[in-house]
């Protein structure tokens, strides 16, 4: 069965510090992987996505993520966090082979300390 795990419910970092949000997935084929960000009271916005090719993908707002097949992981990183990055982050798997559905993790809430 498809599933996405985000082991960190909440993370607090200082502004300017580096960030890594973890994501592990379970999927029986080559996954399509996504990271979305949700600001309070808003819908979800795509940060980046991985379909194939280079395992390090760049996204908007200075984020990047690395796909590691051997670890079934797709961790999100940012070298220097800004106060405006405080939000909820969701990892998702797209499953075109199983009804074209998407499976979301439970999210990681990021707090940025000035």
């Amino acid at each position, binding site marked *: 069965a498809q599933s996405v795990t985000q082991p960190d419910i909440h993370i607090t970092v200082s502004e300017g510090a580096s960030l890594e949000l973890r994501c592990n997935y379970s999927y029986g084929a080559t996954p399509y992987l996504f990271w979305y960000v949700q600001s309070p009271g808003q819908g979800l916005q795509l940060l980046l996505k991985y379909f194939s090719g280079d395992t390090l993908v760049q996204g908007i707002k200075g984020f990047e993520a690395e796909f590691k097949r051997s670890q079934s992981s797709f961790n999100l990183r940012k070298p220097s966090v800004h106060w405006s990055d405080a939000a909820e982050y969701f990892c998702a798997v797209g499953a075109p082979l199983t009804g*074209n559905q998407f499976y979301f993790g*439970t999210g990681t809430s990021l707090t940025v300390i000035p």
Partner: protein
Amino acid sequence: NAGVTQTPKFRILKIGQSMTLQCTQDMNHNYMYWYRQDPGMGLKLIYYSVGAGITDKGEVPNGYNVSRSTTEDFPLRLELAAPSQTSVYFCASTGTGGGGETQYFGPGTRLLVL
């Protein structure tokens, strides 16, 4: 290009009442989805549609119904509202690739059932 729009933004229902959450997209997308988001639970798929006239159940369909008479519209119907349906509801759409493509989300409808 408005993207995905949802109405209403907020609604309070009494137990046993019914209502329809509206969702419209103007991107000519084939795939449309309804999710509910509960605190700490991520997004759960309620129903989805791969095109006009075709709908299918997601992970949590009980208590809901959908229809897809046009490409643009994908309304979600609650027939007998229950407190367990208190949640934030998001509509989303993707193009022809379904699970392999970026989802575009509406701003959400916050529903409170008392």
